[in-house]
């Protein structure tokens, strides 16, 4: 069985690179053109080697794809490989079946090309030296962490008390140990397997502590990283930072925003992970919003009118996340219990105790108002295990409110004053990071922790060599214009005409406006016609407009454009008119501009999900697919309903099938290449994504193409993540658009890269992470990166690059529109028009 796991070089991998082979032998079959590693399907970073058999490689010709990661499934066939004369699209199995292939370093296919180590690094573009918000962590490989299980007799509930008691035995344990209440980690191995200590608690009760060795953790195990994270936590505690939720914040450095009753606690989001070559610590500066009021204050502010008080309070307080100071834990408020007060009793350890008494004895807190109602929170962690809902009861007086509510979010002034502190430009961010590092290295408590564990944290920000992809050319009707160093071609509209416009101009249109705005309307239209004309969009009979009294009208297949009066009164009307003209063009199904695409027969698809604002259980998944952009720069958009609780999409295939059908209607054949940008999935679900979505799509594509009598397409499935914590800095400033990073801070188990595609004027830019979960495209990483960058130039609401590929942005916009406004799937006739722009 262990053999099947397939590991390292012992595995008879087809995709072992010839260069690392210790001798390849000719097999009877030979691949015509592809190297032995070509066409191998990629699984996600976390895929275990043996699960490669369940990668799409096996799904190719084998109908039994429902197999997932079970390594015991030896039915997977090296033999299902097509013989010589394999088609282009052949995907290879990663490992052969044991009965056919003896263990050893043999290769399935002959390398037909000189051995070149396949890497994920691109080479094109101008090099640029970047600093990142990572620090290298140097550890000794011969480390061994001993793992003990600790039991107390009689048992103590509170982990903190347990930690306190154990700490009295520091001389036995050594100074470097980690104890979270249950598990003990240390570098020291005790002589006996079971060590017994005695101690006394603060209340003078005798305890017996049994420490039992349960195992070792080596530096090759993932638990090792967990322990490193714990060690770091420990040393951060030494900086007098408070743990709130999962990250540390500094209440001493809090920033008060009195007028909004807020405090911002600066802090750090840290994580230690195995990156491409080294273990790195990622540090992101975070701010926790703490409201200065407690739930009790909110209650006081609610209406004193008894009939409305309860409802109003409930409304204000439900779903809030609160922090209780005494244990620094956060809870979500699910309900208010007006029937109970702090004087009510509950059963604790066999006897009934009132809340007042409980808090007094346990935390030494005196509750002032004995008549306040109580708050209920459903403890969701426990829900999974035993009861469906274990309730936690909280006292309003002791609950501080965190986070912003919707009211606050729409309060422009509030958000603006907050962003002064939270939106930091690169220099400030770098400063903060360096300060953090300095603190770790100079505060005695934290230094001690690091030293006890022989942990050596680099003092400098990790640097990485990035590359800047060259400027793209924007294609207009009569010419091509370079996008510019800041990837913004707004100016070109003065001289350029849009790529495609209705050949006869717009001759059937109507304007509906209130009579009182007829003056603004006139000005708007004048500007609009001028701008549109300049860009090649003709309006027939320009002066025939009607100022009609406002009337509701419903005609779903007619594209509409709404202009608010505020916009119409705006001084910069010309540029707004330009933008409106572009939008009108798009809504009719035409194209303002395009980029140069060096690949033919390509369909790019973007997918994203947005929740419904009306129904918490529902969400909408939107799919936007391009046609062959070399000759037909239009897009097909479709939406379907899904459950808000599902991470993975269930209706992906029907939507994709529609898109394929549209493509073949317009181009008379199916796309030969498909690049699918998947947004809306968190990185924790990548393995499931692969098993559930990717494999399925590959299979279905194969079947569909076979039905049409065509070879299966080349597919790249790329997961787009906007919210990674990585940041880059170039000389204390933001890196320019087109900056690509594919080394050092990328993850070793992924084919991934970071791309900065957009230009930001304020703060630090957030790179987008692209993870090629599956690919048999046969294009180099350079091209993959360039293609992605090109795709970021096509969002027609903005004459610049966007943070994610345009197809994803469109999908997001569409899904949001349906989830927020329409709440229903729009008509088919609109599917080729950007009605949602």
């Amino acid at each position: 069985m262990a053999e099947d796991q397939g590991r390292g070089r012992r595995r008879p991998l087809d995709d072992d690179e010839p260069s690392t082979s210790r001798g390849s032998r000719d097999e009877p079959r030979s691949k015509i053109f592809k190297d032995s590693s070509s066409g191998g399907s990629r699984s996600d970073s976390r895929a275990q080697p043996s699960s490669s058999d369940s990668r799409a490689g096996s799904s190719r010709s084998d109908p039994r794809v429902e197999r997932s990661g079970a390594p015991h499934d030896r039915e997977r066939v090296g033999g299902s490989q097509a013989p010589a004369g394999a088609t282009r699209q052949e995907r290879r199995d990663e490992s052969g079946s044991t009965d056919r292939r003896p263990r050893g370093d043999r290769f399935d296919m002959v390398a037909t090309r000189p051995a070149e180590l396949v890497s994920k690094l691109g080479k094109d573009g101008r090099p640029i030296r970047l600093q990142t918000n990572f620090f290298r962590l140097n550890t000794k490989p011969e480390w061994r962490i001993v793992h003990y299980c600790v039991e107390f007799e009689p048992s103590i509930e509170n982990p903190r008390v347990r930690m306190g008691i154990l700490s009295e035995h520091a001389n036995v344990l050594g100074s470097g140990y980690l104890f979270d209440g249950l598990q003990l980690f240390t570098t020291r191995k005790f002589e006996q397997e079971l060590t017994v200590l005695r101690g006394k608690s603060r209340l003078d009760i005798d305890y017996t502590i049994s420490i039992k060795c349960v195992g070792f953790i080596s530096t090759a195990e993932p638990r090792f990283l967990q322990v490193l994270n714990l060690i770091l936590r420990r040393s951060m505690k030494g900086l007098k930072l408070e743990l709130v939720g999962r990250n540390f914040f500094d209440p001493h450095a809090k920033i008060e925003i009195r007028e909004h009753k807020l405090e911002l606690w600066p802090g750090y989001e840290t994580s230690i992970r195995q990156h491409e070559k080294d273990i790195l610590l990622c540090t992101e500066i975070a701010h926790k919003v703490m409201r200065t009021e407690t739930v009790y204050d909110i209650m006081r502010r609610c209406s004193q009118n008894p009939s409305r008080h309860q409802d109003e309070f409930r409304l204000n307080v439900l779903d809030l996340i609160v922090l209780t100071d005494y244990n620094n834990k956060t809870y979500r408020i699910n309900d208010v219990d007006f029937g109970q007060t702090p004087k009510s009793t509950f059963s604790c350890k066999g006897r009934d105790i009132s809340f007042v008494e409980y808090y007094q004895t346990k935390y030494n807190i005196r509750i002032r108002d004995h008549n306040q109602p109580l708050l209920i929170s459903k403890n969701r962690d426990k829900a999974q295990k035993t009861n469906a809902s274990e309730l936690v009861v909280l006292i309003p007086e002791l609950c501080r409110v965190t986070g912003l509510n919707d009211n606050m979010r729409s309060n422009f002034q509030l958000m603006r004053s907050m962003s002064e502190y939270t939106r930091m430009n690169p220099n400030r961010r770098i400063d903060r990071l360096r300060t953090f590092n300095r603190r770790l290295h100079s505060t005695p408590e934290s230094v001690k922790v690091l030293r006890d564990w022989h942990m050596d944290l680099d003092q400098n920000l990790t640097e990485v060599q990035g590359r800047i992809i060259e400027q793209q050319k924007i294609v207009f009707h009569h010419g091509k214009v370079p996008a510019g160093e800041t990837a913004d071609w707004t100016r070109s509209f003065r001289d350029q005409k849009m790529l495609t416009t209705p050949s006869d101009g717009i001759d059937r249109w109507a304007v509906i406006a209130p009579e009182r705005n007829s003056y603004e309307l006139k000005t708007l239209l004048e500007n609009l016609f001028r701008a549109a004309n300049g860009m090649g969009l003709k309006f027939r009979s320009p002066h025939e407009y009607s100022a009609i009294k406002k009337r509701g009208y419903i005609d779903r297949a007619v594209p509409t454009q709404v202009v608010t009066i505020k916009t119409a009164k705006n001084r910069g009307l010309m540029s707004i008119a330009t933008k409106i003209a572009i939008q009108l063009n798009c809504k009719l199904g035409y194209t303002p501009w395009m980029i140069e695409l060096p690949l033919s027969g390509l369909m790019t698809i973007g997918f994203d999900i947005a929740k419904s604002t009306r129904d918490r259980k529902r969400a909408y998944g939107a799919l936007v697919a391009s046609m062959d952009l070399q000759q037909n720069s239009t897009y097909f958009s479709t939406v379907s309903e899904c459950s808000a609780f599902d991470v993975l999409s269930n209706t992906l295939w029907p939507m994709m099938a529609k898109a394929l059908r549209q493509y073949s209607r317009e181009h008379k054949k199916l796309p030969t290449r498909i690049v699918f940008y998947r947004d809306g999935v968190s990185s924790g679900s990548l393995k499931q994504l692969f098993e559930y979505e990717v494999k399925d799509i590959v299979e279905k594509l194969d079947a569909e193409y076979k039905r049409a009598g065509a070879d299966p397409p080349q597919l790249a499935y790329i997961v787009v993540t906007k919210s990674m914590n990585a940041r880059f800095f170039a000389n204390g400033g933001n890196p320019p658009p087109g900056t690509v990073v594919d080394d050092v801070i990328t993850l070793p188990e992924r084919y991934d890269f970071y791309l900065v595609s957009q230009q930001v004027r304020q703060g630090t830019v957030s790179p987008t992470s692209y993870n090629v979960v599956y690919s048999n495209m046969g294009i180099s990483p350079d091209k993959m990166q360039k293609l992605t960058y090109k795709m970021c130039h096509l969002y027609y609401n903005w004459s610049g690059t966007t943070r994610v590929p345009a197809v994803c942005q469109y999908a997001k916009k569409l899904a949001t529109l349906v989830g927020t406004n329409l709440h229903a799937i729009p008509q088919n006739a609109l599917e080729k028009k950007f009605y949602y722009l």
Partner: protein
Amino acid sequence: MDNGDESDMVNCPYNKEHKMLRKKLQQHILKCRVIYKDTVQLMICPFNKAHLIPEPELYQHTKSCEDRKIIVQYQTSAAAVLTEDTRHAKIESEENWDDDEDVPDYNPQVYCSQANIVREPNGLFPSQRKAFIKEENRRKFGDDYKEEKKPPKAKSRVDSRPAPYDPRMHNSRRH
């Protein structure tokens, strides 16, 4: 405001005994369908993968499935009108990737299996996970890495502390 939905428990379609949070259902099904693939035959609805229907009921289901509308609406309502002027002459670009030869796609596992890094066995059953970690230890430290899970009681003082392994020493033994 009904917060109950998220914390609602649902049953696994493969085994009624399995209860879990609604949001974990998809993950769970991935594992269960492997375990029960021979015993419980559930077909997947073509319109929505979450619909797992016993074979005899599948036909009926496809006639009445809610998500039919994704396709049916497409088939029955007026199709998007395409006009010639939405197309344009082929845009010639400086580069032409069509002519370039295919290049092998990067496979991260190749690098990982040889590199001195910590790897994560994700989404595996516990026994597989243990085996993976065991193998990783062997790969890194050599074949004689002792997995001392439960140290025997009578351990002499001398080897109370495991000697640090020098990976360089064992390199030659690694293939």
